[in-house]
């Protein structure tokens, strides 16, 4: 997280941190284990009041930022979400809110309003079954038929699809990408829940079988959504990365504390050089993760030309080295680190889910190489 928050950002962070401490302490998270939604509607509405869903929405549409740089502010909230392994579709709802606000289709003003107030949530249908999905191509078929669009295809995993009132669906119209806002209860949409490692996040397979939506479902332009989709991906990666860093921070803090408190052979774990040196390495990975996560948020916020690279570097590094850190934390806890009773798994789960979503470290390494080649090797 940012080294120096402005006083407004700090107040904003602290308010959310306190709220999460109160509402979703580890005990509360455990009780949500079998909850179909994984979060409470009232909790989400209160969070929306704190500004969780307004940061990527223009003032004209009722949103607003703290610092003028929405992705940076949202990164602060996502970091707190990660630190607490907090429930709720933060990534999904914010991506959709950002996309709708940017496209500025008047027909979607009411949906934006509901997302801002927390009255409803929305989710983004981006990933698809192999060989598509990840950071690769969307193949879901979108056809223009008269004044309507028809959708056919499968999206997975779609976060909180079972609770979402609307789905932003990314699909292909011939050569280019098209995005549509589809009511989750539209005829032909079927939503099948999936199993997941996270305690409170929920994912589904969403199948579109000749789903018809009117012309005003369009978000952006037909066949020309590629840049829009890239921007949405960047926003998602900023949030996922910040959240993963929060999860790492909690695990690391717990483990350092444990190293001081746990005695073996008459001395604390913190006195063994074998462990001290590993914790020193982990501290480096942690600070590096903070640094790259912040740099990615800043680049996306300012529309910097290296934003695409920085989000992928963040996702690849935090995914790979972050997992090493999380599992080192488990290792240093010993057997208790893999029990349900201990709190460590709450953040381990969150980090693990985030590593796998929107492109694995290996997929992002390929993307980094692609971007490097575009820039450095003359064709």
């Amino acid at each position, binding site marked *: 997280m940012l080294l120096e928050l402005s006083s407004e950002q700090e107040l904003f962070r602290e308010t959310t941190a306190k709220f999460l401490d109160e509402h979703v302490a580890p005990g509360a998270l455990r009780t949500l284990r079998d909850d179909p939604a994984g979060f409470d509607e009232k909790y989400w509405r209160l969070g929306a009041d704190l500004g969780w869903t307004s940061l990527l929405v223009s003032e004209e549409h009722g949103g607003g930022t703290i610092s003028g740089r929405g992705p940076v502010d949202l990164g602060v909230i996502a970091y707190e979400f990660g630190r607490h392994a907090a429930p709720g579709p933060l990534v999904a709802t914010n991506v959709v809110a950002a996309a709708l606000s940017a496209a500025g289709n008047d027909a979607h003003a009411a949906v934006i309003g509901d997302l801002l107030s927390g009255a409803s949530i929305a989710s983004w249908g981006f990933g698809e079954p192999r060989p598509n999905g990840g950071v690769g191509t969307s193949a879901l078929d979108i056809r223009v038929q008269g004044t309507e669009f028809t959708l056919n295809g499968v999206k997975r995993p779609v976060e909180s699809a079972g609770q979402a009132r609307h789905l932003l669906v990314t699909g292909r119209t011939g050569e280019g990408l098209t995005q549509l806002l589809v009511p989750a209860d539209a005829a032909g949409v079927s939503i099948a829940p999936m199993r997941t490692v996270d305690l409170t996040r929920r994912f589904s397979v969403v199948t579109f079988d000749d789903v018809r939506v009117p012309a005003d479902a369009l978000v952006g332009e037909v066949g020309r959504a590629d840049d829009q989709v890239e921007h949405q991906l960047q926003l998602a990666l900023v949030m996922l990365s910040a959240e993963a860093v929060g999860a790492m921070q909690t695990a690391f803090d717990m483990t350092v504390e444990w190293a001081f408190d746990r005695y073996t052979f008459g001395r604390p774990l913190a006195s063994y*050089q074998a462990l001290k040196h590993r914790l020193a390495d982990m501290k480096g990975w942690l600070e590096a993760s903070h640094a790259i996560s*912040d740099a990615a948020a800043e680049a996306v916020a300012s529309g910097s030309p290296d934003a695409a690279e920085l989000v992928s570097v963040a996702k690849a590094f935090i995914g790979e080295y972050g997992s090493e850190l999380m599992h080192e934390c488990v290792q240093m806890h010993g057997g208790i680190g893999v029990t349900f009773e201990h709190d460590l798994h709450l953040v381990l789960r969150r980090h693990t889910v985030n590593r796998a979503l929107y492109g694995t470290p290996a997929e992002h390494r390929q993307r980094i190489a692609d971007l490097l080649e575009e820039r450095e090797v003359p064709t």
Partner: protein
Amino acid sequence: MSPAEMQDLESFRERARAWVREHLRPVGPLALTLRNERDDEEELAAVERDREIQRMLFEAGLAGICFPPEYGGQGLSPAHQVALNEELTGYEFASRLQSPTFSPCAAVLLEFGTEEQKHRHIPAILKGEEIWMQLLSEPTGGSDVAGALTTAIRDGDEWILNGSKVWTTGAWWSDWGLCLARTNSDVPKHRGLTVFMLPIRQPSIEVHRIEMLNGNREFCQEFLADVRVPDSDRIGDVDQGWTVGTRWMFHERMGYNSPLITIPPGTTRGGAAVGSMLTVARDAGRLHDATARDLVGEARMLEVVGRELHQRLGRGIATGTMSDQCSAIGRVFTGTVAPRRTTIEFELAGAAGAAWTDDDGDVAECGMDFLMRQTACIGGGTTEMARNVVSERVLGMPREPTLDRDVAFRDVLRNPSVRP
């Protein structure tokens, strides 16, 4: 930063940009490695060019951005230094004068030198007239710096130094040295040290060039035999050398993040010599091989993350949100990343890592880099020492037990070969 300061910074940047483009030669990306690339004549010519560049910077008012004006510096902010560094991207710069001359040597002088010492040396350093070395490590032990065996014995207004120092880069073409010596063996090791400065080119100092396993001969060892140093060239108080030494090593750990150093961003030290692994993959004919691209992506990832981490640490330490000791976090991280990048480079090279020709482009020499891989984890303080600093000084964990802390230095056990 206020709008006025921002404007000042922007106009400074424009001035720096115009000057750099007019006076300096464009060059490809540079990595400061231990490759054996030049013969002595070429190396000496490169040193002369570095001095010339420094002189030109001084005359243009672009030397010593963060040095105080009373010693010939510009008295500007670290942000100005960053702006100059950025404008140097793609141009030659005085690479041999940065570390250790500006930092840690000049940094230590600024902090602990007398007015007279600073006036005598800092302007000369800023003009490229004096290249400094750190006479710190000794052959008997690199990491245990406070265990120095080089002695300094008082003789009237002078000190007489005897001993040996090692791992001084380019001492054979340098001018001055900062030297840590033992002035009292009857007290515990940290309490009997004193810092001196001395000219390197003198009959009482023999500079021996060490040949590294790849043929590089930039590292030197010095033998000091009755070197006379006037007491006016002592830095800090007698027997208080560890106070100076602690800050000395802090400045060393700051590495290229020091605001006293002028270096284009992204210049790497140690590790793989090639800026982007993409050219290695290309010259190995593996640009379209998915495995190779994975490695290229990983190397680039590590490079970018390292850059961002160093910026975060530099900012945190400068603003006081992080302790000075946090510079060791960057040192540990570099020690993790650099060897991995070198391994990636070697892997990409394939069989050309074992045998190559001059026509092999960036694949050439990768095998040598791989042999020298660990230098990134050894030079400038080993990663093991930095891990101790991070765990003990940053995370507050118990110190390693030592057997030499409360014992007179003369009674401390040492290598059998040097026991009296």
